Structure formats: C-alpha cells, structure tokens
C-alpha cells in the first residue's frame, strides 16, 4: 500500500505512549482446512475474530485488452486473535489463507512480525510447501506444528522434517489445535526458538 507510515510525524494523530499498548504479531500459516482458525481461536483470549481485507490484485494468467491493466478485487478472510502479554505489549495472531495467490497479503502482514507458525496436516503435507518456501525466502523464523487430527496417521517430527526438507534448526512440534494449552505451547516453542536464534546471531 502506498500510504503506510507517512503520518508518523503528524502531531495531531500522536499521543503519549503510555495509553497505547504496543502490538506485536505472529503469523499462523498453513493450507486450507489445516486448523488455522481453530488454532488462533483457542490460543486467543478473545472470541476468535475474522475480518476481510479487500485487495486489488493484477489478475494473473488471463488475457487482457491492449492498454488495459487487468485487475480484480478480491476479499481475503483473516482470522485473528489477541493475547495480552503485559501492560505494554499485546500479541496478535493472524491466520490467513495459505495459497500462494495470497502471498501479496503476507508481504504486508509479515512486515515486523516476530515469527510464524506453519500448521501442517500429515495427510496433506504438500499444502504447507508454499508457506515454508515463503518464510524461508523472507528470512522469517518459523516452526512447523503438526496438528494431530483424530484418525490421522501419525508421523514422527523427523519424518515431517524430512518430507518438508526443513533446515535442522527449524523446530517441528506436535499439537492439538483444539486445546488452548497446546496452541499456547506451540507459541512458547516458537518464541523460545526465536530467542535461541537471536542469541546465536
């Protein structure tokens, strides 16, 4: 978007820091139906919210008339949740569709994000390839959380790591996104990983 951050020095919209908590964000990625909405909902302290971001994108793969830029407006559903960390920081979780045609949106969302959780379903591991590629290419730290569905064949974390060709330092954890404590532990694992990565860097 063309209008980001261009009013930071406008005194009229500024007030003292103490009344505004600082928002932080973690992204929750993964293929359709992998449990992103469930994960965000159980981890959140508020009822899971969803909204739409209306975006205009150049339509790919279609013919267009000479001199007419083909654009299409689309709405993308986003789930988000909130965790109040302390009196100064609030963590926001954003879950959005994982298909690569929505990556333009991830560009904005990933800006300033602490890191990402990629939810994986071992029956459809291929669905999270796009997300792994995206975060690797952006240098965004992430972990893979295998959401264990009832009746799904269980693979070991190492098998998942191998199938996704993950770097050795990327954590692979198991979770049950229906349980808030399990989703929260995934976030703890992610932040622990981020702290370790920062210590090394």
């Amino acid at each position, binding site marked *: 978007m063309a*209008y*980001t*951050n*261009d*009013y*930071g020095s406008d005194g*009229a*919209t*500024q*007030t003292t820091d103490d*009344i*505004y*908590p*600082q*928002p*932080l*964000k973690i992204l929750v990625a993964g293929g359709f139906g992998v449990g992103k909405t469930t994960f965000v909902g159980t981890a959140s*302290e508020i009822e899971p*919210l*969803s*909204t*739409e*971001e*209306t975006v205009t994108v150049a339509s790919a793969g279609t013919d267009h008339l000479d001199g007419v830029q083909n654009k299409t407006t689309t*709405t993308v559903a*986003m789930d*988000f949740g*909130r*965790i*109040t*960390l*302390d009196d*100064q*920081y609030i*963590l*926001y979780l954003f879950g959005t569709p994982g298909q690569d045609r929505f990556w333009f949106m991830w560009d*904005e*969302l990933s800006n*300033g*994000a*602490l*890191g990402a959780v990629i939810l994986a379903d071992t029956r459809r591991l291929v669905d999270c390839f796009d997300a792994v590629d995206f975060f690797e290419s952006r240098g965004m730290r992430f972990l893979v959380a295998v959401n264990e569905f009832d009746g799904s064949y269980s693979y070991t974390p190492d098998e998942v790591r191998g199938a996704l060709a993950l770097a050795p330092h990327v954590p692979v954890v198991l979770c049950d996104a229906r349980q808030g*404590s399990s989703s*929260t*532990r995934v*976030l*703890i694992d992610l*932040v*622990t990983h*981020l*702290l370790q990565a*920062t*210590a090394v*860097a």
Partner: protein
Amino acid sequence: MSRAEGLGRRAGPERRPEGRDNSWLDADAGRLVRPYTVSGGRTRPSVALELLSMVRATGRALKVDLTPEHTLALDISRSPVTVAEIGAHLKLPVAVAKILLSDLIDQGAVTARPPDPAADPADRDILQRVLDGLHKRLRQ
C-alpha cells in the same frame, strides 16, 4: 462529498444497532448493506491506517450526527484497539473500517498510532516479555 456529509446519517430509515452483534448481517442472506455503502462510496481513507494501528477515542464531543457504524466504531475505541479488531467487530472489510475511522480522526473523536516501525522483532527483551506473557497465559 464533504467530510461532514460523510459522517452524517445516510438517507433512509434510521436503525441504530442495539449492540455489537446487531449489525446489518443476516446469517443466511449475508450482508444486507453492501460494504462501501457504509463508507458513502468512498474507497480510500483520508488518514493512513494500518491493520495494527492502535486507535482510541478522545472523548471529544461531536457536532455531527454519526451513522450507526461510526457510533459503533467510536464505542469500540473507548479502550485502545487495533484497526483490524474494529473491522471484525463491525463485520466490515478492514478497508471500509479504515475509512470510517479516518472520518472520526478528522473530527478529532479518535486518535491513532501506527505500529512502532522501530520495534525490532528480534529484540531479546521483547521476545522475553512475549515468552513471559505466554507462560502466564498457560497458567491461567
């Protein structure tokens, strides 16, 4: 359209929402009011707002009547809240919520602060506070 007109009531039957759940949304039919009708057809906010910009009502009294959506947005902003949350509560696309909020900012009814661009996501102090906050949540 002038700013005051943008803030004012639309023509037609008056119908204020009685609560946050009473937006013009029918579970079966979907939206009863097309989203950009709420913004008076405008598609761009007058003030730059981001998804995670924090907004907060100033308490300043307004001279113009507000539309139900403006009123609801103002009500939600009584404590600091993100633009994304307001969109969700209004059950409107974020782009439309940004326009409504920019009207309120122009009127001095709401102030906004963008996410701190200087906040380093790799800052160890911040990460430690996130970790502490998550552990605290786990114990709740």
